[in-house]
C-alpha cells in the first residue's frame, strides 16, 4: 500500500498564516474525523455525532468549517502557532511547509517499537509575502480567500476519490487507527510536522521536525 501524498501551495501575508493553515488543516480533519466509537457486545459499535462550526477569519475573506471540538482546535492551533513562529524566526521571506500525516500503527514485538505506517500525507507549502500598503492588503484578503476556496475544492476532490482508508478496527485495535484521546471526536491517527526553507529557497538548511503527536519515541 502506497501512501498517497497531496501538496497544496498558498502565498499569504504574514498575519494570514495562522488562519490559512487552520482553514486547510481543519477542512482535512473534518473529513478525517468520526464520532467516538462505542463498542458493545457481539463486536458491534455505534458512532457518536460530529458537530461542525463556522469560523470567520479575521484577516482573510473566508469562513472555515471545522469539527466542533475545542480540544482538537487547541492542538491544531498550537501546531500552527509553532510553525508560524518558526517561519517568523527564519527570516523575512519565509517559506515553509506544514505536513499533516495520517498513519496507522502496527504493533511490533519487543524490543522493536511500533511501526507507524502513513497512508495519507497532506503537505501545505506556504510562501509569506510582505505587502507595502493597506490597499494591497485589502486585495490580498480577497485573493487569499478565493485561493483558499480553491484549495478546499481540491481537498474535497481528493477525499471523494474514496481511495484507501484503514479498515474499521476492533475494540482492541482502535488505538492503532484512531486518536481516541479526545472526548468528543475521533480523528484518524495523525501527526503534524513542519519544515522551514531558508530565504534562498534552494535547499533546506535547517530542518526542524517537531512531532506534535509523538509516537516514534519510545
Amino acid at each position, binding site marked *: 500500500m502506497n501512501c498517497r501524498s497531496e501538496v497544496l501551495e498558498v502565498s499569504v501575508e504574514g498575519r494570514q498564516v495562522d488562519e490559512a493553515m487552520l482553514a486547510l488543516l481543519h*477542512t482535512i480533519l*473534518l*473529513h478525517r474525523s*468520526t*464520532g*467516538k466509537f*462505542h*463498542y*458493545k457486545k*457481539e*463486536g*458491534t*459499535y*455505534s*458512532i*457518536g*455525532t*460530529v*458537530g*461542525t*462550526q*463556522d*469560523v*470567520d477569519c*479575521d484577516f482573510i*475573506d*473566508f*469562513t*472555515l*468549517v471545522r*469539527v*466542533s*471540538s475545542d480540544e482538537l482546535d487547541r492542538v491544531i492551533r498550537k501546531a500552527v502557532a509553532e510553525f508560524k513562529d518558526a517561519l517568523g524566526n527564519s527570516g523575512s521571506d519565509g517559506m515553509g511547509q506544514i505536513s499533516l500525516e495520517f498513519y496507522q500503527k502496527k504493533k511490533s514485538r519487543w524490543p522493536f517499537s511500533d511501526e507507524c505506517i502513513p497512508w495519507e500525507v497532506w503537505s501545505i507549502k506556504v510562501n509569506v509575502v510582505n505587502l507595502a500598503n493597506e490597499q494591497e492588503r*485589502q486585495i490580498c*484578503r*480577497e485573493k487569499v480567500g478565493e485561493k483558499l*476556496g480553491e484549495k*478546499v*475544492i481540491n*481537498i*474535497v*476532490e481528493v*477525499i*471523494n476519490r*474514496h481511495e484507501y482508508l484503514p*479498515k*474499521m*478496527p*476492533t*475494540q482492541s485495535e482502535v488505538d492503532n487507527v484512531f486518536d481516541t484521546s479526545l*472526548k*468528543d*471526536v475521533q480523528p484518524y491517527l495523525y501527526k503534524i510536522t513542519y519544515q522551514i526553507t531558508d530565504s534562498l529557497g534552494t535547499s533546506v538548511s535547517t530542518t526542524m521536525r517537531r512531532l506534535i503527536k509523538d509516537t516514534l519515541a519510545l
Partner: protein
Amino acid sequence: MDSDLSPQDKKDLDKFIKFFALKTVQVIVQARLGEKINTCSSSSPTGSDWFNLAIKDIPEVTHEAKKALAGQLPGIGRSMCVEISLKTSEGDSMELETWCLEMNEKCDKDIKVSYTVYNRLSLLLKSLLAITRVTPAYKLSRKQGHDYVILYRIYFGDVQLTGLGEGFQTVRVGIVGTPIGTITLSCAYRTNLALMSSRQFQRTGPIMGIIIDHYVERPFTNMAHMHPCSYRAPGEDEGGTYAGIEDSQEVCTTSFSTSPPSQLYSSRLSYQTPALGTVDLCHPTACTAAAHPHQMVVPGKEGGVPQVPAQPTHGTAAEHGRIPSCPTGQSPQPAPPTSCSSEVKTVSPSDALETTFTRKVGAFVNKATTQVTTTSLDLPFAAFAPRAYDLQENDPMVHPPPSPAPSSPLQGSLHSNTSSHSGEQPQDDFVMVDFKPAFSKDDLLPMDLGTFYKEFQNPPQLASLSIDVSVQSMAEDLDSLPEKLAIYEKNIDEFDAFVDTLQ
C-alpha cells in the same frame, strides 16, 4: 438490476438516499441563511443524527423538500435540485446557484450498503458543508438584509441551469457509488452578476449631494424587540403545525460490527420513531416578514412558530422558499451612485431655515417620493431629525439589522469596510440637502458661495472641444489644405525673414 441486492439492503439504501437528500437540502439552505452555523459534537449517539453528523432540521425546509420529492427518491433521470437566488428590494431576482443531487447508471455492485455507502454519504455531507462556504453565494448570503434577500427553491426532475447566465462554473462536491447507481452532488454557480451592473446604467449620473443617512433616525428603532435569528427548541405548537404532513420522524440508529480483518463485516440497523418532541428540531425564528414592517412577528412568541414570510407560491413541482434570516451587518452591496435630482429650494436664508425638499428614493427602495417639510433649528441636519416616514409596505427587507457581535472587533470593522469596492452604505432614502459650504454664509450678497458653486458646477463644453465642430473643421481643413500650401509657398521668403529675426 436489484437482484443482487437483498431486500433489507434495498430498503436500507432507499432510506439512506431519502435522508441524504433531506440532509443535503438542510445543509444548503442553512448555509444561505446569512449566519454562522454551530452544532455540537456528542460522544454518545442520540439516534437522531443521520450520517453521524449534527445537522439540525428546519421543519419548514424538510417540509418543502418532502413536498418536492412527493414520495419519490432521487434516481436515474430524476434529480433533486436546490436553486438559490437573490431578490432585491425592487423586485429583481437573479439565480445564483443550483445544487444538483443526481444519480447515474454506473453501479457498484460489490459495495456494502449499510457500511461503506453510509460512511461515504457521511463524508459527502461533510464535503458539502465545506463547499457551501466556498461558493460566491455564501458571501452574498452573509450580507443579505436591506438591499436583498436570498431565496431557495427545491424542485425534482430535470436540472435547469439556464437561469445562471453565461459562463457559469460547476464544482463537483463528490460521488458515492451504490449498487443501484452512482450518486453525484454538484453545484453550478453564476459568475456573471450582470443584474447588478445593468442597474447602474439605468440611473443618471451622480449629482452633487450629501448622503446623510447616518444622521437619519432609523425608521424602525421602536422595534427593538426583534432578535437575530437563532435556533430554538420547538415548543409543542410546532409539532402541531406539521403533524398532518410529516410522517413519523424516522431515526436511524446505526450500529456497526467489527471483527478481525479476516471475517466479514455485518451491520444492524434499527429504526426508532420517537415522539416529535424529543427530536432535536430547530428552526430559525424569522425576523422578516413580507407584510408591513410594523406587523412583523416578534420572535419568541408561541415557541417560535416558523414565520411564513414569503411562503412559497406552490407550483406543481416547484416551491419558493424564503429563507428567514436576519442580516448580519451592513450590506456592502456595490450600490450604484444615487440619482437624486436636486429639487431643493431654500427660502430666505436670513429667516429660520425652512427647508422644503423632495425626497427621492434611492437604490433598492420601493416607495416613491415623499414631500417633507420641516422647520430646522440651528442644527445643521436638524431637518432630518424626527420626521414621519411613509413606510414602505410589502418591503420585506426594511428593518434594521441588530448585528450579532462580530467575533473580533477587527472583523466587524473589516466587514463593513471590505464592501466590494463601495465605500458608501446606501441605507434607506437619499435626501438632497441644500449645499451649504462651510464658512461661506453671507447674508449681504444675493448669491452665496453654494449657489455660485452649483451654477458653475457644470459649465458648457468649450466650443473648440466639441466633437461636432472639430469634425466639421477637420473636413474643411482637409479641403482648404492645398490652397493654404500654395499661399505658404508664395510667401516663403517672408517666412524665412521672420525666422531670421527670431535667431
